[in-house]
């Protein structure tokens, strides 16, 4: 199959590339954009480590082809913190609550939780667990992650978020 020209806005920056149709979005991000924060844990859509936001929606980077993102806007874990490096409320909460150990699954959790709390700023504990059920972690036993998401939800729903620190939300709104 012939290669395809695509244009994808990644973390606010327009990227043009010629890709094989079979190139996954995750491999495009990792290999063509050098954004290696998106990790591959299973390559069959279960573990969630490769989760990125495509036009604001959390998707599995291993189950989307790069050509499907043509014309779209992608936010990866590298685009979640503020440009000055200030961690987002979600990232901050993971740090405060020991929500990561080896850090391999972490980018997928950060992106998934960012989208989840944007859509549901005041979730119940059951909703938090359900929202996290598509991301696997083998280190933490989910204890610190559950605490972190609770804290991030309480922080954001209390209206204490500095809007300027949430690069992802800004990008996604523009993309819609």
């Amino acid at each position: 199959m012939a290669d395809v020209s695509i244009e994808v806005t990644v973390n606010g920056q327009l990227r043009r590339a010629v890709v094989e149709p079979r190139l996954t979005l995750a491999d495009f991000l990792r290999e063509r954009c050098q954004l290696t924060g998106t990790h591959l844990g299973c390559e069959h859509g279960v573990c969630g480590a490769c989760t990125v936001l495509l036009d604001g929606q959390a998707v599995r980077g291993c189950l989307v082809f790069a050509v499907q993102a043509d014309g779209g806007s992608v936010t990866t874990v590298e685009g979640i913190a503020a440009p000055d490096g200030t961690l987002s409320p979600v990232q901050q909460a993971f740090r405060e609550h020991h929500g990561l150990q080896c850090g391999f699954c972490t980018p997928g959790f950060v992106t998934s939780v960012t989208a989840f709390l944007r859509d549901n700023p005041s979730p119940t504990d059951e909703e938090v667990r359900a929202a996290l059920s598509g991301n696997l972690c083998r280190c933490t036993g989910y204890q610190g992650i559950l605490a972190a998401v609770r804290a991030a939800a309480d922080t954001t729903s209390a209206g204490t978020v500095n809007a300027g620190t949430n690069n992802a939300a800004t990008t996604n709104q523009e993309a819609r």
Partner: protein
Amino acid sequence: MSAAPLPDTAAARYAGSRVRRVEDARLLTGAGTFVDDVTRPGMLHASFVRSPHPRARIARVDTAAALALPGVHAVFTADDLNGDVVEAWYTGTGSMVPDTPRPPLAAGEARFAGDIVALVVAGSRYLAEDAAELVDVGYEPLPAVADYAAARTAEALVHEGYAANLAGELAGAPAETIADAYTSAAHVVSETIWEQAQGAVPLETRGLVAEWSRGSRELTVWAGTQAPHEVRMFAARLLGIPEHSVRVITRDVGGGFGQKVVPMREDICVLLAARKLPAAVKWIEDRRENLMAAGTARHEHGTARLAFGADGTLRAASLDHVQDVGAYPTPWPVGTGAATPMIFPGPYRVSAGTFTHASVFSNTPGRVAYRGPWAFETLAREVTLDIAARRMGIDPAELRRRNLLRRDEMPYSSPTGMPYDHMDPLETLEQALAVLDYDAFRAEQAAARSRGRYLGVGISCYAEPTTPAFGVYATEGATIRIEPSGKVNVYVAGGSTGNSLETTAVQLAADALGADIADVHTIQGDTAVTPFGAGTGGSRSGSMIAGAVGVTAAELRDKLTKLAAHKLEASEADIELARSRAAVKGDPEAGVSFAELADIAYFQPYALPPGMSPGLEASARYAATGMGLWACATHVCTCEVDSMTGKVTLLRYVVGEDCGHMINPAVVEGQIAGGVVQGIGGALLEELAYDADGNPVATTFMDYLLPTATEVPLIEYAHVETAPGPEPGGYKGVGEGGAIGAPPAVVNAVADALAPFGVTITRLPLSPAVVAGLIDEAGGSQ
């Protein structure tokens, strides 16, 4: 080296507190460097051709079509690589044991479904996988030894030369020597407990990048490993080159849990191939490969025989143990396998006991270490104890209370010769039961049963050997440099796979030197700049790094103190080190910063005290005084079982763990929780299943079920610090215990819930179908 106590650090502020991790900033922003994030100029990519048959003769390997594909650089077969092996033994095992076969590529015969037959190297991973499909292998299928339990009488042999498929056997005293303890007992309870095959399943699969420099004849390896220095030593022996010609670099590793302790066959192939390639070569395992070929663990069974006096006093504890070692166990499995029944008597007061052990081959991948590799002993003992408690009509908590060792009985030698010391098993039980409020739960359980709901509580106790301090693990080194700026760099071997070893080293060094933690940095995982260390394994890193940092920092502390006393014209005894300053006691204004002291040490040698060497750098090694450190714990779990569907819902989970003093409670709790949830997975969900012919049927995360956030209970901790370890700081290991204690706690909780049905549980995992089946078999009603 002595085991002198850590210096009296009046300014100790970091050890014992929940210091924020220094690893997190990079990992939360996608800026970590895992092995698949490494790229090298012109880098090539590897993919393996794997046998689809559990056992087959390899009649031919035709690589022509694969080599003809544009972008393919090489296809290696056993003929190309296997002859290059100079030596292939692991340092922890040594070269003298009768190690089991471990050819790089399968030669002549494929011995499990997934066995590696050829290695394809191409310009991209996509191309390498395309080419792997073009390698034409002529297989002649052979009957496989699919079931290890029947392997000793099977006609087929996994390896020629190993009669009855026996990799090795070990045994304790003959059973007749303790026969009296059984014949005189009021109760003897014997059960055979079966544990299913499981995988370590780190979220990051295995992988490495190997680059051979032809000019300098040096090998550089970027490895996802728990032990960078072991990779270096192994690679040097493998290729027959000096150790200093190999550099191993490890930054972030996405979990290991034992799977990344030593190089395995795929790693060996890539290391051998690198020398034949013009550029670096990367191999990153995919998940299917990880589940079908990265090794199995826990697949074993054992017959436990417990003897009791009329009052429930434990009189004897013996285990006859058989473990599946697959086709290519890594490393040698017999010695570690025998540890399982040797630890079986556990944290109990019991005078008689013996064991047998058999390691048996099968046509499945091969046994590898997995967090608490001997954990089956706790499963077998604790499940059998609960069965015994029900038969004797004694509450399981009370049965343990009567038999658990107390701190004042230490040291204590188990009947299999385990030298227990510095632990407090009974206290862990009492604390865990108190947190749960055991009596209140029993009342709640009775009330629930009267309403047709089945709640249960399960207890599990264990004694765990941590920080093995012999052979390759005997010592740990550190280098500490206070740089000319006054900032501190701590160099230790590392091998962190989520264990927070960077934070640990920084915390300990800051306290030991009296430095502000913000001034302390650590460098780990690069064999070119770090002292030798055996990496993570055996729950050793916290206590051994504490020792290494302690002895090294003591030298620098002494130098800082002398230098400051000289500069401030004060007595050494009056100098205090804190917040990166040396100050005079009682006169905080009279002080000098580490930066000023470093300036003198590096740039003003004439201002040093007479006889003092310039610079502020020290290297030292720590040797533990004993053979290891005993930790212990009690896990208490409650659950509800749906008697119609068989679904198990965990309600509460309490861990009372005696891991000595804690360097960082958040890290300790994270290690416990992670292990507990792996153990819950093993009890309820996970199974590396094979069909009757030896074909793997759990090769995706749709089939191999890991626990998710929806299944795990909130874990509660009751830390027991009444029996600190004998080494500096009183630390012990805590990395593996969670995974050891959890499976029997869960099994016992389910069995307790189902006690009204008369159900006895002896096999895992307890899937809803299995639990519902047990209820049906028992008649389906009370």
